[in-house]
């Protein structure tokens, strides 16, 4: 299998935080969603991939160590960073002017096509834009030079549901050629429900769940029942439990087996948010 991104034993230590031996691979044609609460290490992982920080371990992009990527290889990466972009005094024309100096294969025609499509004002500076509008410009910049790998840090932040849908659709089309890939971090886990092929869940600098989306869809289950009924369930039948005042939520890893044992209980597919909650807060 061809991988566009490989992260091996990625470790980064700060005085109050440690990214601990992260391993994952992003195959061509796939989308990996990196989820986790604030401070879980998602952005540090992105920074290491982009070589913005020193780290231990190895990161390969297009089968090359990321320290040794040539400019041509780096041109094949598209970036959206949540907290960093051009100065807010620039307008869309200025940004286009700059980007064509930075990318040989900058596609001006495509850039303006997206600008028109997403109704971005061309004569106003970024400081006059809403957060969502700014994010649109960032996303357009990331995809207007025909990259093969998109690394997106919170790309749906501040976007309205309609544009989120459009942009997620665009991402799905982007990987449909089976050559391109996307690594995406987001707080809005519902975005990943529709597009991600693999979900990596991080907590306190560690990967605590790395699974294919289809496994979550087909094997994982969620059962909600009154606390009084909990004694009727074998403890080995569920992997995590979250207790509320009168009810409790059970995370089931093998829903087929569970349904055979407890056919009278209603089992449903967990959302990524519920999964995240149960893994972090459940016991």
């Amino acid at each position, binding site marked *: 299998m061809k991988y566009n991104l490989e992260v091996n034993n990625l470790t980064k230590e700060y005085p109050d935080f440690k990214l601990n031996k992260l391993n994952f691979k992003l195959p061509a044609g796939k989308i990996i969603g990196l989820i986790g609460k604030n401070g879980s290490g998602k952005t540090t992982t992105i920074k290491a991939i*982009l*070589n*913005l920080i020193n780290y231990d371990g190895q990161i390969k992009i297009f089968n090359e160590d990321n320290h040794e990527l040539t400019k041509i290889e780096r*041109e094949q990466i598209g970036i959206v960073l949540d907290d960093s972009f051009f*100065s807010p005094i620039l307008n869309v024309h200025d940004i286009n002017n700059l980007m*064509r100096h*930075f990318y040989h294969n900058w596609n001006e025609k495509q850039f303006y096509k997206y600008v028109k499509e997403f109704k971005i004002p061309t004569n106003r500076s970024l400081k006059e834009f809403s957060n969502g509008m700014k994010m649109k410009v960032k996303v357009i910049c990331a995809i207007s030079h025909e990259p093969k790998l998109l690394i997106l840090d919170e790309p749906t932040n501040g976007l309205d549901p309609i544009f989120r849908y459009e942009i997620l659709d665009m991402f799905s089309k982007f990987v449909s050629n089976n050559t391109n890939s996307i690594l995406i971090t987001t707080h809005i886990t519902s975005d990943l429900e529709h597009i991600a092929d693999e979900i990596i869940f991080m907590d306190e600098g560690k990967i605590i769940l790395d699974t294919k989306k289809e496994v979550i869809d087909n094997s994982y289950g969620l059962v909600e029942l009154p606390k009084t009924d909990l004694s009727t369930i074998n403890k080995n039948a569920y992997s995590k439990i979250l207790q509320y005042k009168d009810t409790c939520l059970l995370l089931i890893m093998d829903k087929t087996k569970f349904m055979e044992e407890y056919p009278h209980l209603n089992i449903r597919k967990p959302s990524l948010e519920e999964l995240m909650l149960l893994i972090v807060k459940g016991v």
Partner: protein
Amino acid sequence: MNTIKGLMLKDLYVFKNYKKNIYFSIIVFAFIIAMASIRINVLVYGSIIFLFFFGMNSISTFSYDENSEIDKYLLSLPITRKEIVFSKYLFTFLNSFLSLIFGFILSLIISLLVTHEINSFFNSLKICFLAFTSVSFLMCADIPCIYKWGVEKGRMQSVLVPILIFFLLSFLSFIILLIFPNLYNLITLDKLLSIAPILCLILNIFFYYLSFHISYKIFSKKSI
């Protein structure tokens, strides 16, 4: 080279944010030069006003970069740390140099229009180049401080470091003159002016070369 051009263009766009102030300042300075040209050699004073007022403006581009955290974004694009630092120095140099040239030409025109004569053209030019070297010294001392501490946090250091270097060099000169008192008679203003072009060239190359390497070393080790 295309990348360097792009990075310099990014810095140039910062200036468009206060282009009205720039135009207004040019008019005000032109008026002051015209008034002063009756009494003093405005070729020197006019040029120096422009050099100090506009030539040191490139520091403001660091501030804009810091506020938008653009370095993180730029380094994610196919741009190297060396290109970012190099473009800053090239921009700083060109900005100061063009400010001086613009100030000099404007002062020359005003002087010709008002007094219909030019006093000591070449000596004025030489003094301007010495002033330009002083600005280069200030900028080259400031930029590594900005890379080390940032514009906001390094405000104090940006003031103190050039002063400290200046006092150290002055102290060194004082010691040298104590040891070799004859040098005092050898270095006169006329002699200094006669070698000014070559002296300025050597000092500018030295300041920019040294400062660039210090800044690049700091920036290459920096986690963004």
